[in-house]
């Protein structure tokens, strides 16, 4: 069966760390997407994550402009230091430039083993992030949160995930970094909060897609690759070989992401 893949988790630019054969440019990403049979990708820039969100977001727009299959995901900060517009202005700017998704990289919940894993070093608490999360919810702009790194170091606590879900129930939240060890926490959250979605980039769970869809349906799983840090091919194969209905595969492959991005209001 041929399914149309829309990747929710790709990056361009030079990263701090690098695999030996890793690529950096938008053109190379598109070539890799062709190899994997991916039609479209939601992309953020390494400069936005690992340098300056505002500079990186601008660079992203320049570099993906020639590629209509690449769609921007901005990395955002709280506005209080003046490094980023206040939330209403930010949302207006996103509307003007057709940006329909954001990522945030707050402080990890415990001291990280490496300096760079401090990420953007702000607390994910009401005083710091409440106005931004409210603006995102008002406009139904999906928030992508990487909750763990590849080696399962926590980047966003489960308590914070639950706090967001409880406080902003209409904010589409897509959590990533989830691997095979988290079902005991993931499942009850999925059961309780309909706004929670899972980016399956690293969700390499034996019969995991089958088990998840049987319990919760396929509407809250979103295909991702993690390119260029991760191969992406494993996630594609897992989905293609999953023993679930073809219609469910297509939802996970791209239908759900299109629905989420199509739900952005951009006007509140």
């Amino acid at each position: 069966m041929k399914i149309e893949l829309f990747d929710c988790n790709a990056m361009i630019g030079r990263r701090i760390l690098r695999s030996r054969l890793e690529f950096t440019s938008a053109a190379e990403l598109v070539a890799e997407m062709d190899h994997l049979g991916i039609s479209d990708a939601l992309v953020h820039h390494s400069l936005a994550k690992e340098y300056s969100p505002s500079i990186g977001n601008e660079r992203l727009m320049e570099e993906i402009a020639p590629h209509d299959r690449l769609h921007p995901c901005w990395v955002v900060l709280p506005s209080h230091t003046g490094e980023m517009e206040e939330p209403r202005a930010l949302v207006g700017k996103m509307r003007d430039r057709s940006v329909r998704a954001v990522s945030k990289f707050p402080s990890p919940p415990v001291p990280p083993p490496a300096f760079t894993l401090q990420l953007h070093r702000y607390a994910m608490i009401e005083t710091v992030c409440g106005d931004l999360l409210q603006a995102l919810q008002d406009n139904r702009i999906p928030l992508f949160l990487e909750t763990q790194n590849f080696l399962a170091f926590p980047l966003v606590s489960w308590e914070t995930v639950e706090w967001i879900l409880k406080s902003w129930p209409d904010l589409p939240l897509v959590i990533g970094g989830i691997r095979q060890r988290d079902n005991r926490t993931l499942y009850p959250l999925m059961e309780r909060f309909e706004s929670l979605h899972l980016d399956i980039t690293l969700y390499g769970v034996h019969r995991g897609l089958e088990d998840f869809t049987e319990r919760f349906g396929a509407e809250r799983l979103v295909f991702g690759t993690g390119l260029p840090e991760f191969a992406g091919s494993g996630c594609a194969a897992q989905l293609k070989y999953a023993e679930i209905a073809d219609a469910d595969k297509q939802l996970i492959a791209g239908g759900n992401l299109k629905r989420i991005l199509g739900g952005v209001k951009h006007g509140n």
Partner: protein
Amino acid sequence: MATSAESRILEKARMGEKLDDVFVLDCHGHIGPSFIHHIPGNDKDGMLKTMDRLGVDVFCISGEAGISCDHRVGNDLVADAVASYPDRYIGYASINPNHAEEAAGELERCFDTLGLTALKIHPTFHVYPASGPNYRPVWEFAARRGCPVLAHTQGGDPNAAPSAYDGIAREFPDVPIILGHAGNTRQGVEEAVEMAGKHTNVFLDLNFSTFYYGLVEDLVRRVRIGQLIYGSDASWNSMSYLLGIILYAKIGDTEKIKILGENAAPLFGIKR
């Protein structure tokens, strides 16, 4: 590098088609529940269903309990799977080195009574060095019986880093040592490549570390092709996920066929 037009294996992956014309041996698997996480379909029938969907011919498995607290429980579960599907499962015997007084007898039981034919150790889980005296019965048994040892590796863990197997590989040159996960971390991969270069009896199991972009292609360039073998770590990980990384790799079908099964078959006594 193979293009998509050249690779019928890639085309099968793109279409989600079963690999029914390639021999596939998965060298790294586990059966049974895990204390660390929930694993759907972790029994012999659940895993067989996935093997059949993908076209995996043979799956080499150890018991979850064997790499955690109770090797007898784990080995018995493996034996049950092998007895039920003798053409599809190959059984690893495991021992817990912290119960070392049982090791020699348990290995004899596994091979002579239960029908297991290979060995698996997990120095990270058992918090015990691969080269420590409590693992001596394993290495000596493998040398006597001429069977492979699947050894968990973990870069940065002195008990299980690939370099921890350097002396063992030299002392037991006739024992095939499969470095599980090929080092597991970036640092570990570099050590695993070094070990494979030094020892022809060292093989790299391409799972987990291969989540990283381009790693399969990089290893094919840097390691003798005959020392690279496919493993998934299912049911800990997804068999299809790890298989897909090999199927989509930008290498030739000839290399893929070797990695997917041809290289490992003789280690497990399978004639092709």
